[in-house]
């Protein structure tokens, strides 16, 4: 744990009507999972999109350290450079697999796309790598040539994970990846995710409205309300001893079981 992968200070995205996210500060280290929780409209997804450079920030700084150790200021990064980082160093897992996958090409092509974008041109090797990744996300090798439309929702979501992790990114953004999944599928998905994070040492920022997901996966959690972080800290601490009234409400409403 030397240098943080991502350090964010004073970040703001203002939609102009009081909506957005404001005064965000945090640091994220290698192998760490950070969950951002909060109700709908609290600015979680806005924050994620701003961090990933999909929205332009209005204030503050986001510094990212790449594999080679050099530091990039993401809020002022040129688009060409941002796209290069997005291709090689980041992953983005969307809530709806349809937004993150190419539905009209096979699973193998989906997994291989990023590798081909980075210049791999050997079909046999691409296919072998894709098959290995399908197995890592618990999809049978035989499904390699099937299109994602033939997959269940949980499988599509796992395929999306494989597609993103195949280039071994340092940082993965996830926007409610368990949103559309039923509880048992969700549990297996989270289990898989935890193992992959542990094995590959990637850093993950995950947006969710489900504190249960945060408890299973995240070392640290940010609680957001109305665009601001109202509480931040170790996940266990927040769950066991929430300080802010809103966090107390969240915890009491979810952890009854």
């Amino acid at each position, binding site marked *: 744990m030397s240098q943080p992968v991502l350090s964010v200070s004073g970040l703001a995205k203002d939609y102009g009507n009081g909506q957005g996210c404001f005064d965000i500060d945090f640091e994220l280290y290698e192998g760490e999972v950070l969950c951002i929780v909060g109700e709908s409209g609290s600015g979680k997804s806005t924050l994620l999109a701003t961090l990933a450079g999909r929205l332009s920030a209005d204030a503050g700084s986001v510094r990212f350290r790449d594999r080679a150790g050099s530091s990039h200021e993401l809020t002022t990064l040129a*688009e*060409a450079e941002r*796209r290069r980082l997005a*291709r090689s160093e980041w992953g983005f897992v969307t809530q709806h697999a349809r937004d993150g996958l*190419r539905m009209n*090409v*096979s699973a*193998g*092509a989906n997994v*291989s*796309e*990023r590798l*081909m*974008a*980075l210049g791999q*041109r*050997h*079909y*046999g090797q*691409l*296919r072998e790598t894709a098959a290995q990744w399908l197995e890592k996300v618990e999809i049978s090798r035989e499904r*390699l*040539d099937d299109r994602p439309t033939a997959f269940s929702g949980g499988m599509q979501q796992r395929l999306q994970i494989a597609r993103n992790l195949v280039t071994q990114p340092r940082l993965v953004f996830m926007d409610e990846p368990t949103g559309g999944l039923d509880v048992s599928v969700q549990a297996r998905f989270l289990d898989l995710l935890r193992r992959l994070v542990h094995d590959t040492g990637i850093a993950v920022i995950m947006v969710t409205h489900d504190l249960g997901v945060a408890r299973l996966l995240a070392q640290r959690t940010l609680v957001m309300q109305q665009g601001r972080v109202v509480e931040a800290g170790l996940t266990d601490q927040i769950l066991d001893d929430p300080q802010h009234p809103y966090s107390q409400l969240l915890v009491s409403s979810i952890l009854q079981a």
Partner: protein
Amino acid sequence: MTEACHSQWQYNFAFLDENTKRMLRRALLKAVAIPGYQVPFGSREMPLPYGWGTGGIQLTASIIGQDDVLKVIDQGADDTTNAVNIRRFFARVTGVATTSSTAAASLIQSRHRIPETPLRSGQIMVFQVPEPEALRTLEASEVETRKLHAHQEYGLMHVKLYEDIARFGHIATSYDYPVMVNQRYLSSPSPIPKFDNPKLHMSPALLLFGAGREKRLYAIPPHTRVESLAFDDHPFSVQRWEQACALCGSHDSYLDEIITDDAGARMFVCSDTDYCQQQQEGKA
């Protein structure tokens, strides 16, 4: 070229007005300066429907001069409907000489084929292009495809080739086969068979591409590197036939399969009629 042509309707020389031709030539100069880059242009309403070669006709109209000798081919043939009509159109609105001989032509407008007879320096080929964007089948957004070109992000094109191999065991794309022009811009060579792709590489002739409906034109200048995309373990290859042409006996031209009766009898003949005829005369 401002004098009106001698036809009874008094159209301007080559149908288009001089300002439109100037606009087109300006766009063509840009296209030649940036090989493979798609230059937008203001496509005009032409006296035939989109998809029948309006892009090619506008390009030809903008560059044709009184000393030019025009050849028009459609599917390799000089005597098919589209070729005959376009050739007659230009003969009428310009009065220039037309020919079916590749060697005699200074300007060749084509759909689907590059002639078998090697092109020479000084000749210009104009292609009619239905879809100038090679990435379109995979990325519907024009905003996004322009960004992909700007940032030279062409991994997507290999996704299509990957799908081909995964589904058919080989790269099944046999026409409109994507090429990399001058190691920079990914381009669609228009629906020529991939058999003709090697002729694009280091061609001594100027190659111009016009898409009327999509309002784009692009160019491959003479002696430009043109590379057909492929995988390391599935290299680019062109079509081969076991037969020779039934009419001229050529072994190395692109062959069309022609059904000759209701019983399914068929023959293979050169798609390039001019080449086929020359081969036959050469033997006689």
